[in-house]
């Protein structure tokens, strides 16, 4: 790319040809207020008109997010005309916006409110009609409220880019336009996998997780034994909500906070992850030995399971029958833990803290209950946990580092920690499979070839004592589809495949803190490109700090099998720790 000469506010700069004014200005040290432009043009509709600037050679003001720079162009960001126009654009957006900000969970991280404050938008500058509101509070994972929607199209782009399914689209035209699954349906009545990637990119409160903080409050009020368990990826991102640099693990402080919120026990889902490896590893070896259905595919990610049930009903026998780690652990808490403590399972309320909104759906599944009792009663996201901590007045940064509860369960290994990043389940499984096949530990412990932190596909062939295991890893359904179509056509050469719903795995889950440079002033400009890697590092470093790094070496897991479950894949294990799947219709009949 050749360089061209431009001027911003009269000062000369050289920038890459082909850049938009917005990008060029950023390279020169200017952040032009903008809304719909997102993530290097992932969404670039030029629809919100917030980023208007003056540029020579253009007729009138231009939307800097779509207008390219040209040789000799003189750009004015702070001319009175541009400043007033940007303010008017925001005022127009606000004129059709539900401004109940004090009730909005996005408050504090709302980009519309942010640009309103930057541009000095006046209250009720334009009064007039409001578009009709479309609400969806039906799906367990996420909610949609079009009274907050500014029609930027980021969610539409993300659903298509990350998952390739395009659930959301624009409906109708003009003033009646709104964004929705086809036919103004609920997410629950469409083939939406409830991954929450759309929630992660929404600039306002139009798309949010379906909050379950109230359910947790009710459980405390009812005097239940409220037990909390937190997934690995949560510790890698929770700190961002309290001003820590992206990628800072805050495990100790998170545990301390959970205790101060009143939970009776604070467990790490890593124990459940170790348990999953024992069950899933055994299942894989069984399938390899007995000519079972191959490739076997992991089933930890409920977004992926939803996708499979909607689109690949014929491939469901490929999915491991294992429940996901937090469901397994919930089932153990309500059986083993309950009986050891003499507590009726009905009086136990298990709360999972997850980087995920699809987990909210998963815990409601009929197949995730034992004798009618759900394994898990409430799922809150990393963001919801941050909200609970903040409302309780806990000064997170001043908390001491505390340890997980490890009474009769809860001990964990490094293998469990890395479940939170794409390739992690695969690596954890390989560590244990290696041990089973060779009788000794893998010397290097790590399997570098399966590691990563972005979406896409990785593959490797692992030779264990002459047994070659071909593996593949995909995250994001757009990538997974490639592997699945190969299986369908009988072309797949793999034995074991790990699939995660969100690109990069749970570290980039739909329940994780929002990544927006405007709210992370101390991060470098490229944080949108680097946050996944940073969060992944936080997990890999915790793995390295562990003495025990293979699931089968977890002493409490051994004890659990000795005292309660028998052996992996035993009858009892199947009853508690395994599940089933069923093909589902995408657009079901609405009565």
């Amino acid at each position, binding site marked *: 790319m050749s360089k061209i000469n431009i001027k911003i506010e009269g000062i000369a700069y050289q920038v890459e040809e082909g850049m938009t004014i917005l990008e060029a200005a950023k390279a020169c040290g200017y952040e032009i207020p903008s809304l719909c432009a997102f993530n290097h043009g992932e969404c670039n509709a030029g629809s919100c008109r917030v980023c208007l600037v003056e540029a020579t050679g253009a007729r009138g003001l231009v939307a800097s997010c779509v207008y390219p720079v040209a040789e000799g162009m003189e750009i004015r960001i702070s001319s009175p005309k541009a400043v007033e126009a940007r303010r008017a654009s925001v005022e127009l957006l606000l004129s059709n916006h539900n401004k109940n900000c004090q009730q909005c969970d996005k408050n504090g991280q709302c980009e519309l409110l942010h640009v309103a404050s930057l541009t000095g938008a006046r209250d009720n500058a334009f009064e007039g009609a409001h578009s009709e509101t479309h609400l969806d509070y039906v799906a367990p994972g996420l909610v949609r409220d079009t009274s907050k929607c500014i029609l930027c199209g980021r969610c539409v782009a993300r659903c298509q880019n990350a998952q390739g399914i395009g659930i959301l*689209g624009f409906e109708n035209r003009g003033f009646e336009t709104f964004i929705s699954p086809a036919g103004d349906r609920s997410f629950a009545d469409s083939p939406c996998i409830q991954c929450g990637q759309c929630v992660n990119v929404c600039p306002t409160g139009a798309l949010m997780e379906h909050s379950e903080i109230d359910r947790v409050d009710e459980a405390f009020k009812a005097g239940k034994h409220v037990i909390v368990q937190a997934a690995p990826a949560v510790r890698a991102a929770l700190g961002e909500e309290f001003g820590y640099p992206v990628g800072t693990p805050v495990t100790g402080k998170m545990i301390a906070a959970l205790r101060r919120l009143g939970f009776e026990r604070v467990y790490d889902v890593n124990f459940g992850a170790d348990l999953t490896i024992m069950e899933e590893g055994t299942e894989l070896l069984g399938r390899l030995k007995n000519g079972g259905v191959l490739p076997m595919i992991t089933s930890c990610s409920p977004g992926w399971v939803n996708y499979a049930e909607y689109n690949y009903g014929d491939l469901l026998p490929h999915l491991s029958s294992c429940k996901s780690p937090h469901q397994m652990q919930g089932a153990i808490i309500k059986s083993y833990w309950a009986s050891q403590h003499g507590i009726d399972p009905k009086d136990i309320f298990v709360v999972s803290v997850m980087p995920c909104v699809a987990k909210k759906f998963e815990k409601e599944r009929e197949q995730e209950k034992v004798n009618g009792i759900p394994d898990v009663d409430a799922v809150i996201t990393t963001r919801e946990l941050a909200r609970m901590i903040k409302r309780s007045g806990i000064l997170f940064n001043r908390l001491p580092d505390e340890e997980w509860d490890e009474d009769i369960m809860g001990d964990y290994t490094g293998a469990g920690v890395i479940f939170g990043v794409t390739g992690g389940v695969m690596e954890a499984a390989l560590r244990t499979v290696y041990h089973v096949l060779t009788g000794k530990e893998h010397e290097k412990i790590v399997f570098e070839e399966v590691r990563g932190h972005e979406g896409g596909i990785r593959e490797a062939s692992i030779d264990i004592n002459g047994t070659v295991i071909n593996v593949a890893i995909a995250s994001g359904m757009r990538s997974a589809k490639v592997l699945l179509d190969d299986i369908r056509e009988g072309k797949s050469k793999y034995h074991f495949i790990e699939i995660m719903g969100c690109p990069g795995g749970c570290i980039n889950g739909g329940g994780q803190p929002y990544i927006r440079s405007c709210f992370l002033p101390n991060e470098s400009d490229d944080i949108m490109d680097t946050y996944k890697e940073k969060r992944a590092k936080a997990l890999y470093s915790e793995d390295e700090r562990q003495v025990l790094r293979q699931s089968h070496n977890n002493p409490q897991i051994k004890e659990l099998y000795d005292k309660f479950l028998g052996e992996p894949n035993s009858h009892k294990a199947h009853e508690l720790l395994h599940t089933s799947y069923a093909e589902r219709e995408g657009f079901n009949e609405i009565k």
Partner: protein
Amino acid sequence: MAKLQAAATAKIEEICARYKDEKTPLMMILSDIQNEYGYIPLEVQEVVSKQTGIPVAEIYGVVTFYSFFSLTPKGKYVIGCCLGTACYVKGAGQVIDKFSEILHIQPGQTTEDGLFTLDALRCIGACGIAPAVSINGKVFPKVATAQVADIIEQYRNAEKEGQEV
């Protein structure tokens, strides 16, 4: 979702196949389906989505964006009242209201007997003969409210006698 009959699915697949080499085939496919069946319900959009790889939500967006496409069956005679600027200032508002009043339907709706659908159109480019009304492609120029009853009667009579207008 109610399942389409195999013949209907095959027909829609055939329509999609006509444009498989086009870069942006959606509008052409939807036009053909609209002409063939008179409407494009969600079940049909699902088939188009499967054939073209275009998400259902995007197809639904196109169908609801253009007034030419319809989600529900249209009547045998589609009355399009132009509400473009020229027609509007010449009294098209009263004309469409009169159709509404006599047929007992709102714009966008179809009479119970399935004979008439009333549509409000954006400018159809016939400003010289404003206000213009188009019924199944036949254009009525300079329509006055007093003529509306006659126009409707003309079609009803033709229908009774089994003739085309």
